[in-house]
């Protein structure tokens, strides 16, 4: 069987940064594997290790720079990777979940996976929509925000727990093939071993363009466009204690005494 796991490289913003037009100046960005996808990769590799003849393929929509991140997924046990990018995608100002789902659906149509795992959301744009949108496009069943997965390679059903709000979990059986969006905490993502990192160097990252997938620039055209990006106004009216650590701790201690948290 084949598991397709979506892997995004996400931008993280430093504490101090400057806005540059409709983006953030590159100087203040670092790139890393999307946190949620790390758990999805681990879930996929876990199924692979527990079963026989399971291939794990990752797919990324992103520029060549993302290869470094993809190598980390390969080092953790992903067998091979696909990365989709071209000039049309590069010139897309607002790569929203609809466009991503459309591209990923075209990859899924080629790869014909039995199971697709995605992170619940990406840490930068945080749409939280790509996985379920993909499922609908390719006619797979799905479950969103999965924090426990009971599935063995070849099963025609996955039993999942979905993490609802307020400390409640929903137990759901999902027919496969399916797309599951994976929540953090579902497992303990492994570190890439040195051996894995070495092996990853020889694994395939297949570059693809939209045309390779039977798509054209229209896949990137949508009705949604980014028009503003700005730092939100801080609304803090907190009393911030000033001084050395000892001095600020002393002021906080006084407050806690005043509040009756601690006597004396």
């Amino acid at each position, binding site marked *: 069987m084949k598991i397709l796991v979506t892997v995004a490289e996400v931008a993280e913003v430093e504490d101090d940064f400057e806005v540059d037009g409709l983006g953030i100046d590159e100087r203040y960005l670092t790139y890393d594997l999307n946190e949620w996808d790390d758990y999805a990769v681990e879930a996929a590799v876990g199924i692979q290790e527990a079963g026989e003849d399971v291939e794990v393929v990752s797919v990324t929509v992103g520029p060549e720079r993302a290869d470094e991140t993809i190598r980390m997924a390969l080092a953790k046990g992903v067998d091979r990777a696909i990365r989709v990018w071209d000039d049309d995608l590069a010139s897309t100002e607002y790569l929203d*979940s609809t466009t991503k789902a459309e591209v990923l659906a075209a990859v899924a149509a080629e790869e014909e996976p039995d199971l697709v795992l995605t992170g619940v959301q990406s840490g930068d744009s*945080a749409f939280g929509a790509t996985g*379920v949108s993909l499922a*609908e496009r390719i006619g797979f069943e799905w479950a969103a925000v999965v924090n426990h997965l009971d599935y063995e390679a070849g099963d025609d059903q996955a039993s999942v727990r979905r*993490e609802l709000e*307020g*400390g409640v979990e929903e137990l759901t059986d999902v027919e496969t093939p399916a797309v599951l969006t994976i929540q953090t905490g579902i497992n303990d993502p492994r570190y890439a071993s040195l051996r894995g990192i070495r092996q990853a160097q020889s694994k395939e990252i297949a570059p693809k363009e939209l045309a390779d997938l039977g798509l054209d620039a229209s896949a990137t055209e949508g009705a*949604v466009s980014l028009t503003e990006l700005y730092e939100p106004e801080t609304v*803090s009216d907190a009393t911030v204690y000033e001084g050395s650590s000892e001095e600020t701790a002393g002021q906080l201690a006084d*407050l806690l005494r005043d509040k009756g948290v601690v006597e004396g």
Partner: protein
Amino acid sequence: MTVLGITEHRRGDLRDVSFELATVGRELADATDSELHLAVVGGEVEAFADDLDREGVDVVHTVDEGEEFNHDVYVQAVEALHDDLDPDVLLMPHSVNGLDYAPAVASRLSLPFVTDAIGVHRDDGLAVTREMYGSKVETVVDVDADRVALTVRPGEWPPVEGTGDADVSAFEVDVDESQVRSTVTGFEEVGGGDVDITDADVLVSVGRGIEEEENLALIEALADTLGATLSSSRPIVDNGWLPKNRQVGQSGKVVTPEVYIAIGISGAVQHVAGMKGAETIVAINDDPSAPIYDLADYGIVDDLFDVVPALIEEFGGEPPEV
């Protein structure tokens, strides 16, 4: 024109986001002199409709299909409602269940889709405010289309109040059972455990800033010194450093202590949803722009590894070596 909002319920109760969604729905409807329609799918739909009949709501549609949420049924019901009502704006909650059906609905109906809205502005077109990069920036996206689907972040709008005079209308959906390929088999409360953090008067709460599991001893020592209960934000539980019953936030527990001391917690929206009702909030974080300071009453912008030992010593305790 019509704005249609899909309400949410769980285990017999409408969730707060239903009434918040009605508020943003009315705001959008007023901008174009439209009607606000709400729909409730499954459960005790008539009782829910009574509760949803609030000021500014024009019509409540009841879809009597199933007891609890099932995304396969929801997708079919919302698609049928959309076909029938042809709303220009379709609103759904940006909740866990919203995430489980709204993208599929938008995809099936080929609607432009914007998620996690924290603000809306409707004039000639629709402008939606949302956040990126872990709430460090806000963005505005414009939607250039006659029809759109939006998910709305819970807790961003006040709930609609007052009694209304809405029409209540039963809506029949011919559910295609062959397309129902998931089955909800039950619910489980998680993290009962030894401690109920919702009972605590004072919570010392720790977040990602603690860096290593070994360093938790420092925060435990502070909690002991203060006679407080230890809680945490999500990453600590994800790492397995504390059990789930200690997690404060949207998917953890909602707490309302007298004093909440947030240590090394940035204040992501999911965490804030669980602790914003605390009477007094103290933040210790070395990042002055951390969102937790928007909520805090008192703050210390400093390294927690310097401040917390000093605080323990203030009360005669001995901080552990970390």
